[in-house]
């Protein structure tokens, strides 16, 4: 399984990013090989529809699930439509979040609107 995380840097020690569409990097973890790779988010610089562009980019990475802070309504719809699962991260490094994911400690992102509310109150 390939797992993608929104992150502020490009390796497993990087802090994760709460933002999805405007995150700087996506770090991808492969649980078969136990390896990390990373790609620079192609959507963050878009004039309009950054979240949409980022979502399209993420789909092209061929991953099975996405771990991020929150998904906007558009990104949520895209991720769901493509059959990917989304999980909510917490503040920490990529490695820490992956560890939590392996131990089934992450909550699935189910509703874009409610997530936005959460973000608003942080």
């Amino acid at each position, binding site marked *: 399984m390939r797992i993608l995380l929104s992150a502020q840097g490009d390796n497993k020690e990087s802090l994760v990013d709460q933002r999805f569409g405007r995150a700087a990097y996506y770090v991808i973890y492969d649980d078969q090989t136990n390896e990390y790779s990373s790609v620079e988010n192609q959507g963050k610089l878009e004039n*309009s529809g950054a979240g949409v562009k980022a979502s399209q980019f993420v789909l092209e990475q061929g991953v099975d699930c996405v771990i991020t802070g929150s998904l906007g309504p558009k990104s949520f719809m895209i991720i769901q439509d493509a059959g990917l699962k989304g999980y909510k991260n917490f503040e920490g490094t990529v490695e820490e979040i992956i560890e939590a994911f392996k131990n089934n400690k992450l909550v699935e992102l189910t509703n874009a609107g409610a997530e936005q509310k959460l973000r608003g109150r942080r």
Partner: protein
Amino acid sequence: MKIAVLSGKGGTGKTTVSTNLAYMMNINYVDLDVEEPNGHIFLKPQIESVKDVVIPTPKIDSEKCTLCGTCVNTCQFNALVNTGKKILVFEDLCHGCGACTLACPVGAITEYDRKIGDMSIGTFDKAKFYSGKMLLNEPMAGPIITDIKKSLPKDEDFIVDCSPGTSCNVVKALDGADYALMVTEPSKFGLHDLKLAVELVRELNIPLGIVINRANEYDHLIEGFAKEENVDIIGKIPFSKEAAKMYSEGRLLIENDEIREMFEMIKISVLDVVKEGNHAISNS
């Protein structure tokens, strides 16, 4: 003759000047401040019809679509996404340009009209009234402005109430104007924004003049700039609590004789320049 009324800064009295001038000169008025159209409050027009403003938006025929993704790569506004199962269209990002329809290699895209705002047409006194209004949560004012401008009767005179600022919506509204009336107020904010607006109008080669609204003892701030830039100040509307009150009640200021006289002078100055042709440009 198209007289565009604009202001770098919001709330300087652009609509006040537009509506009073239109009423006094008895010429048609068009409100292109489509995010916050307020002209109706002062002109109290009789609205005769309300038309939808629409933009063509793509619809994907999933039978024909091969999920090749050409449309997604073509769209500059990220309005389309290929999820691998179907193409999703995000309408609120679509500019209605038709590029995806043109690019689709299998003819799977058709377009339908999507409402993004409306246009009211009516009359006030003896002239025509046009006003555009953008729907809430629609991010694009441009198509509404363009659409309304296209529906205006050719060869008739208009006062065009633009949106504040110097954004591309203002450029769209200004396009084709014979005169630009810049409304400002005597403050550093007013001056700062006036400078930007003058720069824009100069770039477009449109003759211009300045009206100082809420004129007070600090007018010299604007006067100094006007002199430097060789722009005429063609009117001053003095500050008074009475004028502010009339405005807040949605009344026209020309009910007041003194202010009416001021507007008469503005009118004469504008007509002078427009009739003489572009003499203001050679001044710049």
